[in-house]
């Protein structure tokens, strides 16, 4: 128990910060912030960003980074949007449900290709991830622009919007999807064979390979996983914005990295927790929503998140006295 607490100290501190922020916001915006309506609202918003952050976390745990995660999400969404639009044909074509189903499959398929693309260069050629994904980011973006010429794609079944807009017993579907993703990611990353290999590869790829683990598969898996997260986020975004465009969510890349490290994942790999990332995402969401409702200049949101990032990690350093090894 004590061991558990010591190991997860940082997460508890994040949780405490989240609590404090909620209370402070509750005071500052009385009767509006701590309401079912606002929580539902944040639930709608948090999912897409949270899912991308989880996809980013898995990659960072191996010591890599995925700068192209948002671009793969959008490329997959754009292609599937074209497919859905063509099949639905403004209501003259296929029925709504099968059309949506095909769209979702296409999103996953394209994202899978993006993930394999990144994974191939990282796992099989051995290029460092920041360069691979910097390159693939440009490529994916280029392909998306080439297809759309920069405009947005829309015109799919009305029902598709329900994914991003609908609720079940008052809970947004997006939130439900997010919860399922958290659970699956938790099990995959922290409880499965593949997940444990992620941490080991992040710590020392060579020693892990020498232990009979197929580290190429592990790495390939991580980039595919991250692309799958991108696909889910892409579906939610396309549905919420009722369209797909090359530059949607462009600000999410840096934010996802920030959320991952705020959540306690070491940027050099080998450590981190899914739940840490999830709490960090919630913190960023509360600050962002709270400041929006308070109509504070958006620039202060950036400043506040910067301060929280530095503050929480300085605390982590000083209180845990666990000198973070600058690198392996």
């Amino acid at each position, binding site marked *: 128990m004590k*061991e558990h607490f010591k190991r997860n100290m940082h997460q508890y501190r994040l949780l405490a910060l989240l609590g404090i922020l909620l209370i402070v916001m509750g005071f500052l915006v009385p009767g509006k912030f701590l309401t079912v309506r606002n929580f539902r609202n944040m639930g709608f918003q948090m999912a897409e960003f949270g899912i991308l952050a989880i996809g980013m976390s898995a990659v960072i745990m191996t010591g890599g980074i995925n700068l192209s995660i948002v671009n793969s999400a959008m490329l997959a969404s754009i292609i599937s949007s074209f497919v859905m639009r063509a099949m639905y044909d403004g209501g003259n074509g296929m029925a709504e449900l099968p059309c949506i189903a095909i769209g979702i499959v296409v999103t996953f398929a394209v994202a899978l290709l993006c993930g394999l693309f990144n994974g191939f260069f990282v796992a099989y050629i051995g290029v460092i991830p920041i360069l691979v994904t910097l390159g693939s980011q440009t490529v994916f973006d280029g392909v998306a622009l080439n297809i759309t010429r920069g405009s947005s794609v829309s015109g799919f079944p009305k029902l598709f919007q329900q994914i991003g807009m609908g609720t079940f017993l008052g809970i947004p579907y997006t939130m439900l999807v997010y919860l399922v993703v958290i659970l699956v990611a938790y*099990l995959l990353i922290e*409880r*499965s*064979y593949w*997940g*444990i*290999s992620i*941490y*080991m590869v992040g*710590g*020392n790829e*060579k*020693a*892990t*390979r*020498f*232990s*009979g*683990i*197929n580290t190429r598969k592990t790495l390939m898996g991580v980039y595919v996983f991250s692309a799958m997260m991108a696909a889910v986020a892409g579906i939610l975004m396309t549905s919420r914005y009722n369209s797909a465009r090359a530059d949607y969510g462009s600000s999410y890349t840096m934010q996802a990295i920030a959320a991952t490290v705020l959540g306690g994942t070491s940027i050099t790999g*080998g*450590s981190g927790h899914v739940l840490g990332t999830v709490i960090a995402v919630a913190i960023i969401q509360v600050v962002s929503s709270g400041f929006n409702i308070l109509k504070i200049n958006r620039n202060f949101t950036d400043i506040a998140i910067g301060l929280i990032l530095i503050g929480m990690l300085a605390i982590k350093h000083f209180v845990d006295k666990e000198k973070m*090894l600058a690198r*392996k």
Partner: protein
Amino acid sequence: MPGAESARLFIRLENVSKTFPGVNALTNINFDVRGGEIHGLIGENGAGKSTLIKVLAGVHKPDPGAVIEIDGERVDSLTPTESMRRGIMVIYQDFSLFPTLTVKENIAFSEQIERKRRLVNWKEVEEVSKRALSILGVDIDLNARLNTLSTARQQLVAIARALVYDSKLLVMDEPTSALSSGEVENLFRIMRDLRSRGMGIIFISHKLDELFSIVDRMTVLRDGMYIGTRNAGETDVNEIITMMVGREIKQEHMGGTNIGEIVLEVQDISKRGNFSNVTFNLRRGEILGITGLVGAGRTETVRALFGLNPPDSGTILLEGKPIAPKSPAEAQALGIAYVPESRQTEGLVMQQDAESNITLSILKTFQKNMLIQFPERSKRSVELMQQLNVKPAYPFMQAAKFSGGNQQKIVVAKWLATKPKVLIVDEPTNGVDVGAKTEIHQLLRQLADEGMAVIMVSSELPEILSISDRVLVMRRGRINGEFEAKGLTQERIMERAVLDTRRKEAGA
């Protein structure tokens, strides 16, 4: 001649303790070294030897109450710079070199710092490093990047770096762990020379015969405590071992009792620049020792069997079926295990805990419904740690925090866990103390007797002789001799390792 001047105490430690969170690495140590003596520091893995010298080097601050006197002067706070300024130079167990710099800079760098240089004098760097290497009598490309060198060569560079210095006390933490016997002899010659010039030397090694051949006095530590100091002439190996482990350890030839049919046949495998025409076979219940000089290609050869270094030609048969593993994963699936020679870079994931490391090779077996069963895994890892007597047996402690020898045990444990058909161990007792060494030997023997086939690569001839059933000697990428271990002597092995005896035989 070591006169009165050199017999002066150079350094004296009193009451030195060092506690890490949860570990008392050193408790009230008293210790002194004179100028002009070689002082052996002995103890089991984790006894605190490295920690003690890190205190001397100013890397670790001792707990309050410690007294450190250097050259008769009491020093209150010792920093690395201060320690170097006072003439203490350390060769660390992990070398502490700079992997991305060239050989010449690695050798001359600290000296340039000591001289408070602002600009680098490349000419001087070149001269200094050339001189240091020539003292050692080795030839290494001065402009090669350090991380392109083999472990043995890196160790030589680390020694050369220390020799550059005109220091008063040279501390050597296992300087010979990767060296061949010729290189060790060379080093000893230099050490004797330095001693005669009045320098004090602290020498740490687990190789007791080495120690007895060079040191004047030796101090034994056990579990972080000072046990005693003896003059080399007034003690013997048995007494020292008793002091170290608190019991006597006998070393004798342990032959196999249960040697069965051939498991592995290696037929004429070659790989350009690695090994050539290597042929041998391996039986169930047998330990096959492979020895030779460093750089003879032993590691490359056994790695070929583990899928790390597939041969260009030739065949490998496992239980009569041809195999060609292309990766460790494939080799493992075939029932081949390999304990690599470098535990730091190839053996362990240092930042992870002991449990994750020990169970890494058998991780899949804890899977149930796609999920890893952590309680089972913990149970298994504690069992393994106890089986190999890993100290402390904390499964949640970071691998990096174990002492060198205990780290090695963790790597061995990881592979034993897989219960392989063929177990390959590469320098399995590198940096392991006598107690643990015997345990590992017994374990290997026991595993063989239970039906495993074992290949042991080792540069330590006593080790080869004591537990192998058969011995292969390699020389420059080829097998240069094969012997039954029984009745074999070190001399005959060395002959094959050093001399090209094939010429004679072919001619005969």
